[in-house]
């Protein structure tokens, strides 16, 4: 194995172990920034020692022990009473590690720490971009370069955001714990939101030339699967996971050979990923077993499952979709949901019925700047033979689209309908 190979191997170990190291260390030293430093110091030791002495049989345990020793050294230098208290904890843990070989196979304590860390990373004291950055860094194990690449942002911006976020957490004295009681619901909502934002940026990118970024979807899925394992009693955790698994199942069909977006009803369903559909349906089932009143994520997953179950687009159960969108509109009132409901109504009861709802939305002015409102309205008008008005809507959609691929799709519809519009009476 070449030197480069062995560095890649150590990197892989570290990427896998880093989130676990930081989680455990953060509980011990009660400081995420310090935990990160200690974990990195342990990596430096590994990079020196492993190529020389061979990779340890259990590299994760090795890194954890080295990092905890470094924590002790730091705390010894720091002489406050509080610090001494932590010292006792760390000492005890190292003893356990030594004696019990397989403290490191027993996942539960570390997994509890990871759940705590996830809640801290998604704390409302932080800005949403900071939450996303911390979650990818400390739960996903991505480094600054990787996060910057994922979000097409300058590395310096991401690095700065990380520094500020860690300081904000320290200054606010955010405790390293999983919230309980009423607090838990809103904090969990923030965790779910962060994961879904990461997913959505991959599923329909708002920046850059690519319409989808599968790597980001994969990171979000990883976090969703982790959360479902760490917090299995929350129905919405499974609801979100189901939603992401089901949506991911369509990634390969979502982009055409020319890299242009392909709309759901036009997708080649034979390339949908059956494994992810099965996983999604099973997560949805788990969510359903935990509550009779599905939340917004479970309802959106149910909607996605409706499409997933239809082998061909014309088999879609639109009446069921209308029913689900009505439930969703009640659980999570939003003009975007109303827009989707209008589409479902138009499929179930015809374009005229859908247009009534869309026009109602237009009157409320809430979605004026949303390109999909105009492309939906254009679609319905076109189906009703009102080609001139339809073209005008597609032109507005084109001017509002944020993503190059979406803009191109809208432009294509303008061209496609242009001919019919020109020949309109």
């Amino acid at each position, binding site marked *: 194995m070449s030197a480069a190979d062995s560095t890649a191997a150590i990197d892989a170990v570290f990427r*896998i172990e880093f989130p676990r190291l930081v989680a455990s260390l953060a509980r011990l030293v009660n400081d995420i920034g310090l935990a990160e430093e200690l974990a990195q110091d342990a990596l430096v030791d590994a990079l020196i020692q492993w190529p020389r002495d061979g990779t340890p049989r259990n590299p994760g345990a090795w890194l954890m022990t080295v990092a905890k020793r470094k924590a002790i050294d730091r705390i010894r230098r720091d002489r406050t009473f509080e610090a001494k208290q932590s010292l006792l904890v760390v000492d005890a843990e190292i003893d356990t590690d030594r004696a019990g070989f397989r403290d490191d196979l027993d996942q539960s304590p570390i997994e509890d720490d990871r759940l705590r860390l996830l809640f801290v990373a998604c704390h409302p004291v932080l800005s949403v971009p900071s939450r996303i950055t911390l979650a990818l860094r400390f739960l996903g194990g991505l480094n600054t370069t990787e996060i910057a690449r994922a979000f097409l942002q300058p590395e310096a911006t991401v690095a700065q955001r990380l520094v500020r976020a860690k300081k904000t957490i320290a200054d606010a004295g955010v405790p390293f714990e999983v919230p309980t009681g009423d607090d838990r619901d809103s904090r969990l909502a923030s965790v779910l939101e962060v994961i879904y934002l990461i997913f959505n940026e991959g599923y329909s990118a708002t920046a850059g030339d690519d319409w989808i970024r599968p790597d980001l979807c994969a990171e979000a899925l990883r*976090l969703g699967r982790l959360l479902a394992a760490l917090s299995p009693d929350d129905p919405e955790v499974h609801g979100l996971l189901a939603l992401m698994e089901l949506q991911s199942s369509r990634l390969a069909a979502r982009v055409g050979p020319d890299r242009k977006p392909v709309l759901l009803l036009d997708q080649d369903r034979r390339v949908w990923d059956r494994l992810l559909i099965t996983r999604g349906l099973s997560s949805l089932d788990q969510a359903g077993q935990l509550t009779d009143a599905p939340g917004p994520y479970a309802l959106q997953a149910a909607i996605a499952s409706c499409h997933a179950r239809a082998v061909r687009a014309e088999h879609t159960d639109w009446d069921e979709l209308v029913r689900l969108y009505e439930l969703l509109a009640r659980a999570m009132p939003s003009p975007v949901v109303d827009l989707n409901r209008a589409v479902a109504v138009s499929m179930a009861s015809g374009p005229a019925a859908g247009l009534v709802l869309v026009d109602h939305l237009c009157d409320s002015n809430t979605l004026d700047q949303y390109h999909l409102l105009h492309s939906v309205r254009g679609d319905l008008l076109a189906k009703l033979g009102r080609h001139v008005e339809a073209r005008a809507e597609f032109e507005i959609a084109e001017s509002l689209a944020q993503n190059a691929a979406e803009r191109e799709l809208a432009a294509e519809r303008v061209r496609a309908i242009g001919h019919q519009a020109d020949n309109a009476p």
Partner: protein
Amino acid sequence: MRFFGYTLGDESAPQPEPTPEFFEEMGKFMEEATTAGVIVATGGIAPTMMGAKITLKDGAFTVVDGPFAEAKELIGGWALVECRDLAEAIEWSKRFVGVLGEGEVRVRPVFGPE
């Protein structure tokens, strides 16, 4: 990226009976890999003597019942894993074969939307 990992070996060679400790350790490994979102599907494969080989050549099918006489077969376990790159998939494979004690695992990328 998704990878397909599988154990490879000579199925006619005698396999030691797995111990309860082995099952325990393997269970813990599977739990860890699943929690990490790495394993997305996994399963076991029965010996070739329970299967069949289907060939189509010059428009004619040949169906041969197992066992097949290849020196090395996909034996026992397989898993579909979701990793960021091959290096990660190799690391997880090492951990898996570490639980086996010894053996050969192969891991290959699965094409997907990238």
